[in-house]
């Protein structure tokens, strides 16, 4: 009886897994076969990498990739700095109005930059940051989620360590840097993975703010590539799609454990 349930469990789980991975498999299939073969699902038709070649030449993917890389790095650095400072302030310092500000930070959780798209776009223009990577990243740097996370992490640091460092003569920033930051390393790592995957895949805001290939990230590049006036070519689009998701996907497959742990950790908080 137990083995039957176990079998049914495995069966159900694997069936769902196959269904879940199917779109990716089909895209891979389409990308490595000619369009005609792909749409006719001719199983044993010849493999070809022509689609990848055409797709590669069709857009400056390398530039897009660099832009995306720069973007997530800039955002991450900004987030690290801001959330560390703010998280520490909320965790360990007392000051008037602290609770009110905390509620305001909370509100940012749902006032997403995408929802306020028109005004944020105007704001970025006013700051002269239109069509720049910084302009894409700025609204995300003061991440409420990140502030929460760091606050939790810092709260868990034993007060004795804080006191010990103060007695040794460290200023507040010194204590922060020497005591709290190293202890929160796992949280930083987790947060980094979540942030990178989120912003690597972000679309609507970069669509509005970037205007030229010099700043365009992969997601926007892919959407432009896949929307020509006169029709879509499934194989070429699949090839382009696979190329653009390959970096993150490969990173994920290699560092699976860490990715999952990161999201787990972020979730617990």
């Amino acid at each position, binding site marked *: 009886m137990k083995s039957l349930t176990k079998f049914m469990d495995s069966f159900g789980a694997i069936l769902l897994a196959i269904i879940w991975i199917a779109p990716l498999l089909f895209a891979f299939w389409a990308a490595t076969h000619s369009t005609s073969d792909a*749409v*006719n699902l001719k199983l044993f038709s010849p493999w070809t990498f022509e689609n990848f070649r*055409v797709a590669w030449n069709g857009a400056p993917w390398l530039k897009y990739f660099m832009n995306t890389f720069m973007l997530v790095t800039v955002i991450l650095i900004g987030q690290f700095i801001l959330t560390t400072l703010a998280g520490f302030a909320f965790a360990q310092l007392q000051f008037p109005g602290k609770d009110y500000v905390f509620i305001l930070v909370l509100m940012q959780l749902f006032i997403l930059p995408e929802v306020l798209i028109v005004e944020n776009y105007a704001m970025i223009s006013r700051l002269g940051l239109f*069509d720049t990577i910084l302009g894409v990243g700025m609204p995300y740097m003061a991440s409420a989620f990140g502030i929460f996370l760091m606050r939790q992490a810092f709260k868990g640091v034993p007060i004795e360590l804080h006191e010990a460092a103060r007695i040794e003569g460290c200023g507040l920033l010194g204590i922060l840097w020497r005591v709290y930051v190293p202890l929160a390393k796992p949280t930083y790592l987790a947060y980094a993975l979540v942030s990178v995957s989120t912003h690597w895949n972000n679309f609507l805001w970069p669509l509005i703010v970037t*205007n030229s290939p010099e700043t365009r990230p992969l997601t926007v590049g892919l959407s432009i590539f896949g929307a020509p006036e*006169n029709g*879509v070519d499934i194989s070429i689009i699949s090839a382009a799609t696979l190329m653009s998701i390959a970096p993150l996907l490969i990173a994920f497959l290699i560092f699976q454990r860490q990715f999952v742990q990161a999201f787990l950790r972020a979730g617990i908080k």
Partner: protein
Amino acid sequence: MKLFSTTGLGLATAMAVGLTAPASAETELTMYYPIAVGGALTEVVDGIVADFEAANPDIKVNAIYSGNYDDTRVRALSALASGEPAQLAVMFSIDAYDLIEQELIIPFEDVATSDADKAWLSSFYPALMANSLIEGKTWGIPFQRSTIVAYYNKDLFRAAGLDPEAPPTTWDEMIEMGKALTQGDTYGLMIPSTGYPYWMFQALAIQNGKEVMSGDGLTTHFDDPSVVETLEFWKSLSTEHGIMPTGTVEWGTLRQAFLEGQTAMMWHSTGNLTAVKNGASFDFGVAELPANVRKGSPTGGGNFYLFKETSDEERAAALKLMQFMTSPEQAAAWSIGTGYMGVSPASYETEALEAYTAEFPPALVARNQLENAVAEFSTFETARVRDGLNNAIQSALTGAKEPADALAEAQAAAVRLLSDYQ
């Protein structure tokens, strides 16, 4: 418009100051353009730009590929609204009214002042200028223009016992031949009703004798009896005659469907010509659209527009660039590479196009159709009015609404939207 007026005005002033201050030897132009065929044509554009820069060392051009027409319009206007300089763009021929309304472009009469310039302005096919002539001035210069053409599979014609050199020339012939061609999994005809349904509908309407909008962009005729009749005809192709699939036909994958033999005839832009030529494993032909009361097709495609917030040097430079890119030789090269039409009669007299069309006659069909071509659908508030028409077409074809009701609704909405402008 808060978005453009406050920020745009302020930044435009700053920009104007910034532009006049440093006296650089080079004029820099930023041009946004859409690629209609997807992919490698950015290289072709880069090549043309390089040639131009070589011939004009004091002008530098940033040609920025921005996606499809809608993307390009959004990009160009975003750039302007943010104070980023852009001097010209290739945008939809039908965006003209909105661009004028937003005070973003200038008419070419303001810059094309020399005799040579004026000759250039009148060197284009008149039918292609129809969308640009508003309030007595020229606001757009044709660059990548098209009409709808009927592609047909000659092999399937032969198999159905029809003469492959005699595609249908009237609606009745189209239905008759369509029925002979519809067998098994293959349909006789597919007219796309997603993507740009209004464009296809315009063709049918003009073939039935009626234009769906007035020439001044202020009135629409959606509920005119012949227009309603047209929509009913379109619907009957699937429901009554069975030569077309029911529901909507997908624009994006139609070319592939044709190449796969899922339909014997398809209506599509001549811009698809090169792609069809390269991808067809069968003998195919291209024909002008059939007539009912008369022959006809709307034009389509993109025009050059010159933005208002530009200095005199930039305008002169931009004009030079446009003249270069629409010169007969360049127009010929562009036409051969894409399937879009040569925009001037002179382009068809170049060696390159003469040779190409002699060897590949389908390339002339769109040009020949210009005789009976009309302007593409364009009014003030064009996006929203057009949306209403698109929805009406799709509702009728999917059976959600009756053609008469759907079009009446679209007309009522259009009247409401246009009332402010009358």
